[in-house]
């Protein structure tokens, strides 16, 4: 909403010393968000004079017609000056706007006396475009009146300050000069004469005149419909200059008197109006619901398909407009219109909002109706419009017809003390009452209660809380105290919140960098990752309105985003990356329709469960991508690249820092190298995968060879973390160290042999560590030798040689049984 300051000053007495910025600050404090304060013609620096055209000499020897004019700019402007002008839309005797040498126009263009077309041009006759007042290109400005030599700036609106206000959905009334000036009157404490309650002076209609008839098919959707008829209007009548200026300042383009008047009254009072060419109508005009399948070509030349919840304006021939949104092309006012019907109505905000949304059609009218227009304003506004039309366009007033549902504004009961209790500071009864009355409420005091009736332009005031806001904002938020509540004793971070932080810290301390990637994925990425259709990582959760059709799904795996981020970093010159992300993934089939419980009470447990059951499963995952150099070449030796083992190690590190136990087994995930993939198990279930990426995946993302990755279900891992860790028994008795080597087939995993040795060694085994692998001439083909260091210790005694030997033998026996292991050299 653009509000010219001079217009506001016409409506209320703003103290003269107040600038546009001062006024803006007042409005901001009152809750109207003034985004900018713009000065019209702000780029004009220097005087502009009213000039009277005394003589025009047509110069015809040039490629285009040129005029050599003698213009009187009065004594102040230096008398009569000769000026060259290319425009032709003026005649001798016209008043024009003249910029004299020295004046700078928008864009830094300084006027100077100069030789041109054979004459010394001593100034410039200005167009609106040259002064940046509008985009109007049709010639120079011709003033309706004026005195040669007078300051032209106020006459053409140069220097006018305009406030641009972003109006929030609750403050429809502020989409009018009326509403804004009301707020200013409260802020400045000056009287407010409500222009919305002025009854315009209309001539008495002829006794036998019959105005156009109107109706409403649904008083819920259209509670008030009025139609005012004027006949014999002069279609050639022009809008007055001041009206055009205000419309332009208000952000609307002047069109014709009839259209300009409806727009002007809308800006002034906030009531959208629509002017029909009465001769294009057939029968009564009414609001009603569209027949499904019907169409309407609106003023913007778009043919719109209509449905049964489109509220339309109809006559006997059919649909002539979208109610409160946009008129139809067929009934539009045109250059020959002499008989006019002005529609002023009240439409339900939700009906208009839904239509505007569905038709993607946000008009000045719909923006007002969806925020709520004064319920009783329509007849006042249309009277104002009719009076202006008759004043400037002639014509005879025929009368008004109207239909209206009973209007009951209702009563809001509020404790007198409520605003003070909510604000946390004293606000007495007198203040509460005064401020509510200032915004237009009717207030009755009933003991401790106030019975408040909201004004018809404040449909947003329905609850006591709304009234509290009115009072507190007008008392001023700057006067609120600053106090601290005593919160209940808290619990600190939850287990999972604490462990997630620890994991992030640990990974970063080990060289990994956290990234936060977008969760949007597409089939081509998932194909590149070789994720099978049935795989849980194959995204099934799809967006109805994705930003890109290439990526319509929500990720079911963190790896696509991480791979792309790794590629970007490598592409930007990084020789190695270690990236991690902690984030939600979206799993499960496409959802059904989630229930929409009542908002008047707490949803039932079943309803709440059903609602949650329809959401996709969204576990927290941890993803890591390791690519290229892990350690650069240096004085210590050559560089070392990331490999499968770094990915597995990361899994082990994470499990260890949160105290969870995981096991690693040979995996076969298709995203990974078929021989270099580990399944991560936790609590007996697979929870992740780690290893070297499949060479085709690496190639698809242009990553260094042997790039590796890890992805874990972090929720599952954290769920297995112990709440409490028991203390170990630390034995001070001596350790017995035993090394042994066993020969096993290559197909047997180290994990299996280690597990067998551990199981066979029994409780005396303190630790076991693989320290060498050998395959070669000394072991059979297809076999390898695994050398382990075992440490035995008892909690209560020094182990005897026999005890240690027995435990060692137990380990060997078990490895033999479970893995076919044969002790080497023994």
């Amino acid at each position, binding site marked *: 909403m653009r509000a010219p300051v001079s217009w506001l000053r016409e409506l209320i007495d703003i103290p003269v010393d107040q600038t546009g910025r001062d006024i803006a600050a007042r409005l901001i404090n009152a809750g109207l968000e003034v985004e900018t304060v713009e000065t019209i013609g702000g780029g004009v620096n220097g005087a502009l004079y009213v000039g009277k055209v005394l003589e025009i000499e047509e110069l015809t020897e040039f490629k285009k017609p040129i005029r050599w004019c003698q213009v009187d700019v009065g004594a102040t402007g230096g008398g009569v000056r000769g000026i060259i002008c290319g425009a032709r839309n003026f005649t001798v005797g016209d008043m024009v706007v003249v910029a004299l040498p020295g004046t700078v126009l928008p864009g830094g263009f300084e006027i100077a006396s100069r030789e041109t077309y054979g004459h010394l041009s001593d100034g410039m006759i200005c167009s609106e475009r040259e002064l940046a007042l509008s985009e109007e290109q049709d010639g120079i400005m011709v003033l309706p009146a004026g005195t040669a030599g007078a300051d032209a700036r106020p006459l053409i609106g140069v220097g006018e300050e305009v406030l641009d206000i972003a109006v929030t959905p609750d403050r429809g009334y502020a989409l009018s000069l009326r509403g804004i000036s009301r707020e200013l009157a409260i802020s400045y404490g000056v009287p407010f004469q409500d222009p919305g309650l002025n009854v315009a002076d209309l001539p008495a209609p002829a006794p036998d005149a019959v105005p156009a008839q109107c109706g409403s098919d649904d008083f819920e959707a259209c509670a008030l419909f009025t139609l005012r008829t004027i006949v014999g209007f002069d279609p050639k009548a022009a809008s007055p200059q001041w009206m055009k200026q205000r419309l332009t300042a208000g952000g609307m383009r002047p069109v014709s008197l009839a259209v300009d008047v409806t727009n002007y009254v809308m800006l002034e009072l906030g009531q959208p109006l629509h002017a029909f060419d009465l001769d294009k109508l057939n029968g009564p005009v009414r609001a009603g619901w569209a027949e499904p399948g019907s169409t309407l070509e609106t003023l913007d030349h778009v043919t719109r398909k209509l449905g049964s919840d489109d509220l339309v304006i109809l006559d006997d021939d059919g649909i002539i407009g979208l109610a409160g949104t946009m008129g139809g092309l067929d009934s539009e006012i045109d250059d020959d219109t002499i008989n006019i019907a002005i529609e002023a109505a009240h439409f339900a905000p*939700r009906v208009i909002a839904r239509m505007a949304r569905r038709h993607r059609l946000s008009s000045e009218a719909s923006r007002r109706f969806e925020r709520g227009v004064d319920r009783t304003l329509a007849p006042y506004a249309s009277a104002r419009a009719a009076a202006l039309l008759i004043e400037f366009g002639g014509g005879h007033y025929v009368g008004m017809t109207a239909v209206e549902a009973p209007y009951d504004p209702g009563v809001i009961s509020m404790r007198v003390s409520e605003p003070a209790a909510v604000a946390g500071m004293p606000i007495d009864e007198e203040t509460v009452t005064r401020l509510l009355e200032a915004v237009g409420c009717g207030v009755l005091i009933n003991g401790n209660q106030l019975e408040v009736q909201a004004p018809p332009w404040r449909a947003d005031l329905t*609850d006591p809380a709304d009234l509290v806001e009115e009072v507190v904002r007008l008392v001023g938020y700057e006067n609120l105290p*600053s*106090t601290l509540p005593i919160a209940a004793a808290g619990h600190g971070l939850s287990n999972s919140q604490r462990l997630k932080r620890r994991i992030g810290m640990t990974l*970063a301390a080990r060289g990994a960098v956290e*990234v*936060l990637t977008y969760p949007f994925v597409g089939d081509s990425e998932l194909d590149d990752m070789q994720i099978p259709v049935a795989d849980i990582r194959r995204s099934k959760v799809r*967006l109805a309105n994705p930003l890109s059709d290439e990526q319509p799904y929500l990720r079911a795996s963190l790896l696509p985003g991480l791979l792309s981020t790794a590629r970007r970093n490598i592409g930007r010159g990084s020789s190695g990356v270690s*990236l*991690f992300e902690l984030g939600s993934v979206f799993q499960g089939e496409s959802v059904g329709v989630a229930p929409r419980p009542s908002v008047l009470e707490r949803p039932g447990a079943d309803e709440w469960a059903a609602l949650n059951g329809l959401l996709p499963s969204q576990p927290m995952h941890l993803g890591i991508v390791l690519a290229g150099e892990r350690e650069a070449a240096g004085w210590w030796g050559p560089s070392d690249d990331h490999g499968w083992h770094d990915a597995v190690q990361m899994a082990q590190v994470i499990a260890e820092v949160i105290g969870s136990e995981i096991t690693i087994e040979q995996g076969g995930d298709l995203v990974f190298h078929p021989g270099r993939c580990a399944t991560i198990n936790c609590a007996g279930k697979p929870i992740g995968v780690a290893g070297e990426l499949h060479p085709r995946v690496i190639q698809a993302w242009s990553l260094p060879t042997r790039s590796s990755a890890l992805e874990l279900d972090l929720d599952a891992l954290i769920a297995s973390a112990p709440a409490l860790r028991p203390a170990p028994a630390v034995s001070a008795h001596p350790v017995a160290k035993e090394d042994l080597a066993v020969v096993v087939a290559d197909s047997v995993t180290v994990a299996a042999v280690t597990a067998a040795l551990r199981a066979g060694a029994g409780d005396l085994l303190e630790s076991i560590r693989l320290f060498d692998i050998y395959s070669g001439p000394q072991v059979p083909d297809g076999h390898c030798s695994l050398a382990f260091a075992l440490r035995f210790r008892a909690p209560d005694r020094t182990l005897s040689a026999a005890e240690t030997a027995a435990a060692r033998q137990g380990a060997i026996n078990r490895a033999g049984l479970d893995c076919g292991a044969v002790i080497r050299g023994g």
Partner: protein
Amino acid sequence: MSGPNTSFDPKQVAVLGAEAIATMVAEALAAVSAAGDLAVLKEVRLAHAGDRSPLALANRDIGALPPAAKAEVGKRVGEARGAVKAALGSRQIELERARDEFVLAEEFIDVTLPAMRVPLGARHPLTTVMERICDVFIAMGYDIAEGPEAEAEWVNFDALNVPPDHPARTMQDTFYVGSPESGVVLRTQTSPIQIRAMLDRQLPIYVVAPGRVYRTDELDATHTPVFHQVEGLAVDVGLTMGDLKGTLDHFAQEMFDPGIVTRLRPSYFPFTEPSAELDVQCFVCRGASIDNSAEPCRTCGSEGWIEWGGCGMVNPRVLQAVGIDPAKYRGFAFGMGIERTLMFRNGVTDMRDMVEGDLRFSLAFGLES
């Protein structure tokens, strides 16, 4: 060993005279101090303190002396041997030290060589700012609440007093999951976590909820379709707007600087009533840049205040939707963008830096921001 002293031979015992012993000692000490390295000293030890050294032989001869002479001579020889041994010992230490110093000097290394073989990683500054915010509120007794990113429309809108077709729904451009009628959206704000907190927790409630939110904006320098917010909610008996203001003042001081205050401006959010925009005093210029063209402030654009978020008293209709009695309880709530916070707090100028995952961006922040 010589046998017991049965006879006394004056010729043999001449070597045990005082002068002779003194000579032996002098020779031994001279040899000790002349020994230049440990190998020579070992030979000196053998020659002057070994079994066959003159003093050892002299000691052996004491047994042949008459009893009257034994004590005197024994003492003399003993003292002599002690002196030689002590000299050997201290020379040994001297020579060992010298050797060690030489070896250690040989082992010199330029310790300014790069020692950081695997550099440190980093956490994303958005994560660490959220953690910082959470810590401030945990210190005030708040818990951290969470909720799903794909959220029921009822939770994201309806329960927050944004009915269908309300203009506030079009204020936020929403991603719909499945179909526009599915009733599931990507949450457009962290406010739905308020609803979950009120449905899941016991009163009184004091929670903050950081999280990812989504709007259908294209990525540019100031917009991103995926961003982060933090939400605060308190529901208790007797809470006031002053409590909201005080909480935000404390929060601002912890995040920026002591003495920083907040400013509330009336505004509109469907889920709060009264509602306010939240500005924080510029922590760089503290307002000194206002109308001071000589010292403009880039952080606040010389406004003195920075728009930070929105807040208000929980709309009683929201309490009603989750079954909390508005006659008994009042709440306040606030929310702000984390990206925006990082932009003005840490001077990030382009939204894309926070989105693209360039290592160099996050590494500059390390483990904190």
